[in-house]
């Protein structure tokens, strides 16, 4: 169980290997990686800057992860989110969940990224030819997170 915020790129292979090495109770590993797209709506994106709320970010990520661990029998989980300036093609976030069976691993992974997108205090400042603008929250993200309410 581990969450981290960092400026450096995410070494996906190393993160996943660290989660699973030596734990032979793991039968399935679910992973989601978010990347910077070069297009937003109609506009070409040159880059973006991710701001966050140090302290609260880690608390929220830990709370999200604890909720996933309470809902599914996880053997390991990990959230790594980048901040600072990113360009198209760059990794933004890695979430991963390992469990004995695949359904728990996949469901917990989907849960983590849905909740992270509505609860973790990160904000994207997107750069297009029209200038820099703060990305608006998407209603579809709230709807995705609401699926998990109970």
């Amino acid at each position, binding site marked *: 169980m581990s969450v981290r915020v960092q400026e450096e790129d995410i070494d996906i292979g190393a993160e996943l290997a660290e989660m699973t090495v030596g734990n032979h109770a793991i039968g399935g590993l679910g992973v989601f990686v978010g990347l910077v797209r070069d297009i937003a709506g109609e506009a070409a994106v040159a880059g973006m800057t991710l701001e966050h709320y140090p*302290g*609260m970010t880690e*608390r*929220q990520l830990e709370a999200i992860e604890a909720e996933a661990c309470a809902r599914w029998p996880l053997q390991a989980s990990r959230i790594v989110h980048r901040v600072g300036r990113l360009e198209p093609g760059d990794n933004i976030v890695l979430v991963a969940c390992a469990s004995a069976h695949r359904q728990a691993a996949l469901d917990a992974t989907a849960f983590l990224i849905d909740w992270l997108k509505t609860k973790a205090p990160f904000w*994207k*400042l997107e750069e297009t030819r029209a200038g820099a603008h703060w990305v*608006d*929250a*998407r209603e579809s*993200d709230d709807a995705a997170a609401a699926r998990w309410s109970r």
Partner: protein
Amino acid sequence: MKVLYFAWVRQRIGVGHEAVTPPPEVLTISALVDWLRTRGPGYAEAFADTRAIRCAVNQEYVEPDHPVASGDEVAFFPPVTGG
């Protein structure tokens, strides 16, 4: 009381954080927002539509009727867009 601002709330107000001493009748987030609005045009602009703003007290999400006290860390920011 320490107040933090993020994203466009920070840009409109012009600072990322500040120490403030609201008058003693400011006991809730709503009252704090009303008081902050009086501090200048940047504040008024930032808090023009409070439906677009989220608030955390001591790093936990709260609603506008949540109490605030002098030792609190209060943060205002737009809905999150990470991930």
